[in-house]
């Protein structure tokens, strides 16, 4: 069940897979996940920068765009994942496992 759902999400996020390629350039801006919240809950970056999430909870989490256009996949405790944002825009994202966990990324030119 879990696998099926996750597969659906990644299938829906093929663009995300491309964007999730590790970028060597700028250091990633870090967002901590702790106590079931994204910290900070709003981050502003420039196009071409990466966000890196670090999960400090026992519970596995994800960072998933509301429209599923990108998805970090599951991060266990101490797990990290990063996504490269190439174009300006605003992203609302959440954790698919704990949907009350919501946050935003603002990408400027």
């Amino acid at each position: 069940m879990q696998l099926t759902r996750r597969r659906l999400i990644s299938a829906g996020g093929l663009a995300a897979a491309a964007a999730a390629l590790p970028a060597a350039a700028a250091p990633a801006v870090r967002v901590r996940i702790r106590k079931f919240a994204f910290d900070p809950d709003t981050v502003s970056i420039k196009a071409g920068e990466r966000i890196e999430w670090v999960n400090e909870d026992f519970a596995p989490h994800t960072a998933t765009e509301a429209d599923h256009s990108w998805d970090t996949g599951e991060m266990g405790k101490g797990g990290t994942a990063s996504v490269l944002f190439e174009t300006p825009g605003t992203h609302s994202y959440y954790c698919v496992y704990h949907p009350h966990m919501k946050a935003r990324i603002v990408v400027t030119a």
Partner: protein
Amino acid sequence: MTFRLLSAAVLAGAMVLPAHAAEPMNDLEIAHTAYTAGQLDIRYAHLALAVSENADVRSFAETMIRDHSAVNSAAVDLITELNVTPQDNDLSRALVQGAADKRAELMGLSGSAFDCAYAQNELGYHQVVNKTVEDSFIPAVTVAPLKELLTDALATFKVHEGHAEQMVSNLQCS
């Protein structure tokens, strides 16, 4: 005395717990009971995945399995590191028996009757376990890493409690 709250609330949830003596539980008993409570919730979740066709209920059950497995695997790591063996005790045994009775009851249900009974039990179960962990276990535990683990676990279980509350309200059970 310490666990009167858990006993009373579990009783209210139609589980049967024996009356407990006034003796406080030691660290190894607390570890055993906290681990057992997680395993029991995982068993409820597997039952829900076998029976329920409601997407929200199924997704909640998957989260229970994922999160409680993560917490309990951290507990196993800690127990291994400390080289200790958790001790079975009356409260653990009562929880196991209460959950067996509840599962038997749930297995007789299907459709929205099952979903509602599962959701309400999840809410009640997390409320009772959380109150016990917060008011009794955490203050009583003497080993720092175990206290830390229970504190982090409690944060997880409280999220589950809120999620269960939401699920009960969304299901519009009578």
